[in-house]
């Protein structure tokens, strides 16, 4: 009950920030429509909607990382978190309270992204529902990164690292904007060792109905999500003790 009260507060803080709507929803949609418009005017297959939409849906989650990291680091920077530490909230309440509000937002964001893609020619299949369902493990990964960054960075640093660095890294290394085979070499090796490309390939596989191809990517995503969340929880508890 206490955790839900705290989660409710976090939801309100996030949804009342106009940047949440502008970047969390608006920016991925703009990208989707813009790149689809480019595709319509070039003779080669660059941004086919069934290939592009899963990438944009995953890319949009990097803003969820930014929002959660900024919220936590702002709370840490103010005295609010110190006050909350003196209330009966437990460590688990804090972690769940920061994590749970982002999950429905991530699902809503992915749903809107896929619905918008229907207007751009994406075929209506039951796999759309699975693609939205499989966004949940990917969301856990991105929320974990947000919790981790929020636990160690100031709100200004979180804005720079998550808003600038992570969104770019996650985009370039995900194979959304270009085929990683085109670059190859060390770039491709590094991209394959990180979770971002696997998150996109998981969504692409599920959307296409190729579940057997998607499954190995799910393990990559889940593995990274568990590691990131564990590190994030450890760091959050450490800073909680330091307070």
């Amino acid at each position, binding site marked *: 009950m206490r955790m839900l009260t705290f989660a409710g507060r976090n939801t309100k803080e996030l949804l009342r920030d106009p940047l949440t709507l502008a970047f969390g929803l608006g920016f991925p949609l703009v990208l989707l429509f813009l790149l689809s418009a480019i595709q319509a005017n070039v003779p080669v297959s660059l941004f086919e909607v069934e290939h592009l939409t899963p990438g944009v849906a995953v890319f949009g989650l990097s803003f969820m990382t930014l929002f959660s990291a900024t919220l936590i680091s702002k709370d840490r920077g103010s005295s609010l978190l*110190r006050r909350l530490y003196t209330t009966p909230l437990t460590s688990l309440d804090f972690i769940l309270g920061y994590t749970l509000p982002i999950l429905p937002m991530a699902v809503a964001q992915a749903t809107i992204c896929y619905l918008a893609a229907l207007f751009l020619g994406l075929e209506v299949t039951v796999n759309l529902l699975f693609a939205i369902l499989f966004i949940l493990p990917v969301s856990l990964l991105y929320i974990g990164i947000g919790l981790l960054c929020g636990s160690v960075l100031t709100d200004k640093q979180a804005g720079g690292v998550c808003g600038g660095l992570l969104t770019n890294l996650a985009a370039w290394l995900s194979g959304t904007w270009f085929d990683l085979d085109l670059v190859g070499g060390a770039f491709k090796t590094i991209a394959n060792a990180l979770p971002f490309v696997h998150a996109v390939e998981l969504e692409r596989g599920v959307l296409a109905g190729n579940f057997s191809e998607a499954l190995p990517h799910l393990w990559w995503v889940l593995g990274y999500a568990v590691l990131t969340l564990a590190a994030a929880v450890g760091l959050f508890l450490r800073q909680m003790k330091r307070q």
Partner: protein
Amino acid sequence: MDAIRIENLTKEYKDTVAVDNLSFTVAQGELFSLLGVNGAGKTTTIKMLSCLTLPTAGDAFLHGKSICKESAAVKAMVGVSPQETAVAPGLTVYENLELICGLYGLKKDARKERIDEIVASLRLEKMLRKKAGKLSGGWQRRLSIAMALISHPRILFLDEPTLGLDVIARSELWDLIRSLKGKTTILLTTHYMEEAEALSDRVAIMKDGRLLICDTPAGIKNAAGKESFGDAFIHIVKEGGAL
């Protein structure tokens, strides 16, 4: 039973002793002030008593519950108004109060009644629907104090509660604090001598983490041989407790 019993409480940071072997008791319903120049250890003492940080040595008991071993029970009985205003900026004044009610487990039907009470006490009616982040510093501080009081704490820690308040707001807060005397045990830190003298049943003066003297305001003036409480404080701190 004493409301607060502090036994040889010590807090060390790397090469600094912030609180040095502190011992005193506070009776139930007493208003007890901690005075000292910056760095005296007042805020660190409150942080330990409110379970924000663990002591390096010693222990303290709040209504018989150890701050080291029974932090959950301690947290359930205390209210803290930190030195800096600690409010959720994106929530309205009403929602901030509702948040704290929820964190302390107040049932929904009891919340409104309690919020109405505290809003009337601190004259927050006109601000109820305004976002806390948009309030002036003085109003934020009032809200911060209301948040500390709303859970009906048995022990209230007020860390420089009137800092930044104008004369009228300070006078109103004094009235509120006086109205709590006898019902709630209050531990107050302040830099304002007249505040400590006007409000306190007893005062403890600290310097470099150590307790110099603990007595009634009149007793402290007598011990220092001074007419005014401010002069007595200066004399005691300069003498370093050689009384």
